[in-house]
């Protein structure tokens, strides 16, 4: 039965291939009966089918079904396929090896001799890789054959038949051709690793660009991206090592030009090629969050100490758990209702679900550098992601929250997409009173600037000068009569947590990511500068306390007329009274008000004009 199958197979293969060459059909050791191999093990002899072996992964699996530790060719099992150009160029087993070839070759350098070819390295490499140089000329080495070492030129053995454009491929010793001269390529680029270089930090200590466009811009000098000393947020005092790299990165297919992150919990892979990929996919924030959660990196045996430096991942994931689903719609006593008419989140739109809701795109790496962040500066420049942020935290926020040039041109940093809002033909948001937009409505990318919520007041995108308000620099503290005012300069993050406002006691969070705990301990109230009034409005200055903003949903979404929801900013658990508990009794005007935000927004909080109606803009919630 088997003999009959063998004869049929051999004859049919000859017919289908049409080559008529005994050499092409011959079964030679080791791929012959000595290892129970027949034609039909690799070729299907039916005339209606191709007799050729499948390419790529299918061929890889077929070869490795024997060439694995449990297979018949277990002694030659340290192999992995050479994935090239993200798989668009197929370099499979047969590209370099001829399973029909003999285990000796006359194709050596210098010519006129024979050499062992135990690994059946192919001489006609251009058969499957058209651009390859051929023939591959094998150097006589001390053992079997070489991959390009030895004396004399040319040095185009099997690796160099394709790697002709790299600056170091020939190892001639000349400048740019001296990469590891004297070593076999496979001494560093092992077949078992798919020819991936063994050392992460060895290659990534310096840049290299061979001009093939993979990756764009060439190889990065990643080692230098990590700040020196003991200040890195991840490594905590250890020089970056290969093992550190592989805590976050999987290198199985790195040779194809992609960079893969390995999920700290599940081991799933996040594949991307370059930084610009972060604007589309994959969702790298999931990768970050799965380590920066309550249980760390579950893939590791020491999940709360992934780098071995004692630096536990801070739990950020829980901050993103809750959200609120309220139409962003607010009003004031002077200008009426306004808003963008969208659901708001109680955190930045990191998750895919939030991004689907808002149309925004933001990832952890837009603000933090996985390589560049230091303990002393965890922020990175959103427009230059490999550069640590050099400004204030508030100005970092303004990189996005300055309004840009208005809806449609919000001036977002690299790969950040602002939430989508509906505007009319003049670029004004649709959800302002009396502006229904109609057919001229357009959905554009936009983000409200922090200084102004009043979209109808052109130019609404004018960036506010934060140096002019009390919660930042240049407050009234320098004015005559106010010498005793608080000396602290606050940042956006004093009141807002950019990671979100979820807490166990307030699982829905709140709009505008107000912190659930405000640390005012450093904000010192040092005097009574309202003698004859009702005492200082901030008589809790210097204290810290939890903040829970109560939100009262409205009856209908906008533009329904009335403010559809109410946030209690100044109540007993509100934000403002964390410091200004005595605000309502402090003066006449306050005694008639119900909420701080009715008159005081970002632009009016004890600045040059501290309430609505003065020179600054209208209040924001």
């Amino acid at each position, binding site marked *: 039965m088997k003999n009959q199958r063998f004869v049929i197979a051999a004859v049919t293969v000859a017919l289908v291939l049409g080559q008529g060459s005994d050499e092409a059909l011959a079964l030679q050791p080791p791929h012959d009966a000595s290892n*129970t191999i027949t034609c039909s093990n690799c*070729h299907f002899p039916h005339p209606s089918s191709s007799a050729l072996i499948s390419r790529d992964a*299918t061929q890889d699996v077929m070869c490795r079904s024997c060439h694995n*530790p*449990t297979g*018949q060719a277990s002694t030659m099992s340290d192999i992995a396929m050479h994935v090239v150009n993200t798989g668009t160029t197929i370099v499979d087993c047969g590209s370099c090896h001829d399973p029909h070839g003999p285990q000796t070759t006359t194709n050596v350098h210098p010519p006129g001799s024979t050499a062992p070819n135990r690994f059946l390295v192919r001489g006609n490499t251009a058969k499957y890789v058209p651009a390859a140089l051929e023939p591959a000329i094998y150097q006589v080495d001390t053992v079997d054959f070489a991959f390009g070492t030895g004396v004399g030129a040319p040095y185009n053995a099997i690796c160099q038949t394709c790697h002709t454009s790299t600056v170091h491929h020939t190892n001639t010793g000349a400048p740019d051709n001296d990469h590891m001269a004297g070593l076999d390529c496979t001494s560093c680029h092992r077949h078992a690793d798919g020819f991936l270089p063994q050392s992460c930090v060895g290659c990534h200590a310096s840049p290299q660009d061979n001009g093939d466009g993979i990756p764009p811009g060439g190889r990065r000098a990643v080692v230098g991206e990590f700040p020196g000393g003991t200040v890195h947020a991840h490594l905590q005092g250890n020089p970056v090592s290969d*093992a550190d790299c592989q805590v976050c990165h999987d290198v199985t297919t790195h040779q194809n030009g992609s960079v893969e992150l390995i999920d700290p919990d*599940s*081991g799933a*892979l996040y594949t991307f090629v370059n930084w610009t990929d972060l604007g589309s996919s994959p969702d790298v924030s999931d990768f970050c969050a799965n380590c920066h959660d309550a249980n760390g990196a579950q893939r590791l045996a020491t999940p709360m100490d992934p780098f071995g430096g004692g630096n536990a991942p801070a739990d950020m994931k829980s901050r993103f758990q809750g959200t609120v689903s309220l139409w962003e719609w607010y009003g004031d006593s002077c200008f009426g209702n306004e808003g963008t008419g969208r659901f708001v989140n109680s955190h930045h739109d990191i998750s895919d679900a939030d991004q689907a809701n808002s149309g925004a795109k933001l990832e952890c790496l837009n603000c933090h550098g996985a390589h560049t962040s230091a303990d002393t500066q965890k922020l990175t420049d959103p427009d230059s992601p490999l550069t640590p942020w050099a400004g204030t935290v508030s100005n970092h926020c303004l990189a996005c929250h300055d309004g840009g040039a208005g809806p449609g041109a919000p001036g977002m940093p690299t790969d950040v997409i602002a939430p989508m809002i509906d505007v009319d033909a003049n670029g004004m948001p649709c959800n302002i009173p009396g502006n229904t937009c109609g057919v001229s409505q357009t959905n554009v990318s936009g983000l409200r600037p922090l200084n102004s919520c009043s979209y109808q007041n052109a130019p609404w995108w004018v960036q506010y000068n934060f140096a002019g308000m009390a919660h930042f620099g240049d407050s009234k503290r320098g004015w005559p009569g106010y010498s005793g005012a608080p000396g602290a300069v606050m940042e956006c993050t004093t009141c807002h947590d950019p990671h979100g406002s979820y807490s166990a006691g307030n699982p829905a969070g709140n709009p505008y990511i107000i912190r659930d705990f405000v640390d005012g301990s450093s904000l010192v109230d040092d005097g009574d500068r309202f003698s004859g009034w009702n005492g200082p409005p901030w008589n809790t200055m210097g204290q810290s306390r939890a903040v829970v903003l109560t939100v009262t949903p409205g009856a209908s979404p906008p533009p329904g007329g009335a403010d559809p929801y109410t946030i209690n900013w100044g109540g007993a658990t509100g934000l403002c009274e964390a410091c200004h508990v005595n605000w309502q009794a402090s003066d006449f005007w306050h005694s008639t008000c119900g909420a701080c935000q009715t008159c005081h927004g970002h632009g009016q909080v004890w600045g040059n004009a501290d309430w609505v109606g003065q020179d600054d803009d209208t209040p924001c919630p």
Partner: protein
Amino acid sequence: MNPHVDLPAKAIDRFPAPREVQQGTFPDLSVRSVLQHPTRAALDGQGRLFVTDAKVGSVFVLDRDRRVVSEHKGLGRPLGIAVDSQGNIYVGSAEHRRVDVLDSKGRLFRVIGEGAIQMPNDLALDGDGNLYVADSLGHTVRVFDPSGNLTMNIGTRGDAPGELRFPAAIIVAARQDPKGSGAVELYVADQGNGRVQVFDLAGRFLRTFGEPVEAFVGEWRGSFVRPQSLAMDSQGRLHVLDVGLTKVQIMDPVSGDFVADYGTLGRSVGQLYLPLHIVMLPEGQVALTDSGNRRLEILRIPDTQAALGR
């Protein structure tokens, strides 16, 4: 023959390369072990999974939650593995061509078959404590008594019924037939001959099924390219993992009839790339050593009864 059914197996979990384990100290992260090439696996009575990695040279022990709880290192190229009721671990050593026996702490205390075994590819234990070794390059199954004495070789090199050519895997399993005899039999994945052969525990040939089929095209159901590993599920159905097909075929262990199949080639969760071993887990799950993806793949066994309308 039963109508065949292609059933997608549902991936319920995957366990990629653990970067480190909880045993020992690791002064340098670069020496921490990585599950690079999960090879064979065995389940102990406590539900723990023991996985050999022929490239790391270790046995990884995973608890019921499939967390790595320990690693037994320095085993060369470990292949087949089995665990007895005392917690002793039997490891086939390709490097030393023998079976190493480790205690539950991973300490080597006995070797079996040195000088007799060429390639201890897969191991199995019967209820009497006899050890069965699929000696692939010896083209036979060697049987050792509980004292480690070679008592029998089952099969010799050849392609006739009862003969073997590169037996890659074995299991000792009770056959659930309608008579309820519960006969315990030895199933051998006769890889070189592309078939499964069945013997009684005295080494007598009983039956064979399947035949070799070409790798890529043609009707493969009920036939094999590279039968690589065997397992018997709780319903008495034989699961045959074929590394050449990248599929598991569910078969009637008596008639050899094809019932269903699962497994697809790929890198995604639930897919397989060069799977080398299959182990039955409780609650209708199987674990596969997915060597090309460097992970264990935990799949839920397809409900063939429902799919077949039974």
